[in-house]
């Protein structure tokens, strides 16, 4: 055999040898890693608890959305609740809230949906995060049991409508608005003029009616007479600890405690399944993009364009 062939043959032998060694090495390392205890992740199954998260201001999201987008706002929450309602495995629902509240209609829709689940004997447990004030508390009150952390900011039972008065600024800049309207109240709460006493009275009526509805629903959800809630329903915020004292919250506790309570009330075993909301990465990516570059949330947009909104919302 000539010298060149010998050289190439030895290179080829070296390559084969390194391949064999690599396979042995990989197999041995694999065996070692298999010996160490491994955490098996099995898909959740069987009767369990469904988790719904209500984070941020509550509002209705425009129906648009793409086929791969997550539904947001109250519509998204109601859709999730409907899914849990239809799922025969769901014996209890844990509603995790971290919200300052939001628009009246969106909050009432979530409240009504939760009450519907409650009537179907699905146990509802609310777990409050940092903030569950105003509309956030309204939603929680639909649950059979409410837990809040000691430091949770809650309460703020009340209704608010805010409209900026820019008249002074308009005068200073010499801006005048031409308004042609069909009725005297058509431009109610306009930012370019003072609000008249009659207009104030009209808005106050909406506020009062929404407030009464708030009280009535909290009374219904908490199974407490309105007279017991009313003294603290003056818009004041309170800590979770104080809310327990006023019976607006049942117990001080964390998210884990709330899960345990849901298990207990639904008579589920310790190791029962917990069904978290899941979204595929594409959905999350597209929704993230939309939130980052797309249009604002309706509440923010409305506020920025100075359109008045009546809200169950804590506005520090």
């Amino acid at each position, binding site marked *: *055999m000539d010298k060149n*062939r010998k050289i190439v043959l030895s290179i080829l032998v070296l390559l084969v040898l*390194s391949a064999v060694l*690599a*396979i042995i*090495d*990989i197999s041995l390392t694999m065996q070692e*890693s298999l010996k160490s205890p491994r955490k098996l992740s099995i898909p959740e199954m069987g009767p369990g608890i469904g988790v719904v998260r209500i984070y941020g201001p509550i509002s209705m999201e425009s129906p648009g*959305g793409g086929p791969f987008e997550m539904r947001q706002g109250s519509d998204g929450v109601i859709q999730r609740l409907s899914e849990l309602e239809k799922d025969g495995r769901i014996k209890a629902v844990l509603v995790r809230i971290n919200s300052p509240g939001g628009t009246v209609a969106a909050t009432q829709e979530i409240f009504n949906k939760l009450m519907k689940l409650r009537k179907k004997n699905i146990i509802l447990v609310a777990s409050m995060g940092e903030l569950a004030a105003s509309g956030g508390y309204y939603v929680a009150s639909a649950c059979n049991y409410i837990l809040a952390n000691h430091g949770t900011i809650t309460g703020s039972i009340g209704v608010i409508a805010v409209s900026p008065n820019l008249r002074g600024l308009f005068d200073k800049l010499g801006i005048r608005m031409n308004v042609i309207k069909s009725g005297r109240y058509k431009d109610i709460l306009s930012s370019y003029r003072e609000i008249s006493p009659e207009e104030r009275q009209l808005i106050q009526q909406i506020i009062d009616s929404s407030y009464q509805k708030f009280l009535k629903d909290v009374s219904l959800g908490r199974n407490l007479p309105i007279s017991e809630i009313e003294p603290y329903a003056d818009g004041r915020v309170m800590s979770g600890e104080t809310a327990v004292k006023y019976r607006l919250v049942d117990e001080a506790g964390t998210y884990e405690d709330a899960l345990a309570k849901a298990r207990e009330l639904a008579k589920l075993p310790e190791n029962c399944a917990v069904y978290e909301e899941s979204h595929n990465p594409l959905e999350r990516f597209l929704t993230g993009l*939309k939130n980052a570059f797309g249009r604002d949330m309706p509440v923010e947009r409305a506020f920025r364009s100075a359109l008045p909104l009546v809200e169950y919302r804590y506005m520090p």
Partner: protein
Amino acid sequence: MREYLRSLRWIDYYFLVLTEPRKLAVLFPREEKASFTMGFITLALVALFDILSVSLLGRQTAHFYDRISYGWVFSFILLALQVAVLASLIDAACQLLGKGGNVKRLVALLSFALFPRTLLLPLVFIVRVLNFAPYFFFVFFSLGLTVWSALIAVQGIAEINSIGTGRSLTALLLPFVFVGLSLFFLALLGVLNLAGYLSSI
């Protein structure tokens, strides 16, 4: 075939690819069938060694057995397709330069040109055993061996088409420029489409 293997003439291909790529290209017209077959065997080897090199550095799980079986076949087919497409594009580039018409030989040449990539496995194995920046050296050696493969291809293309090294290099680079530009415009159109979709919802 058995006799051909016993004759050890096939070893000459690997000797020439590592030392004198031009002589290798001269060999193709004489042993067209054998060189073509050996080219594909080389591709299968390259696919196997690629998988082993990557597996050696990655997380070692039972998935390795899937990679080394189904993954090997998949990589081989993918590599063969890449070589076939690249050979066709290089031939088209050669025709633009006034030569070309030897796709089959180009396929064999490009398959052999990838042979140095098999050397990545022993090199990675050594740095892994020494535990000396294995990921850095994996990239470093990969780049080095890719350059070596490109040099083999350039010399081979020059010999097959009887052109100078400069024109041969141009013929090798043109397909990459073409594919790169196509991908760029495709990506641009995709981004414009996505932006339009996002702004319309």
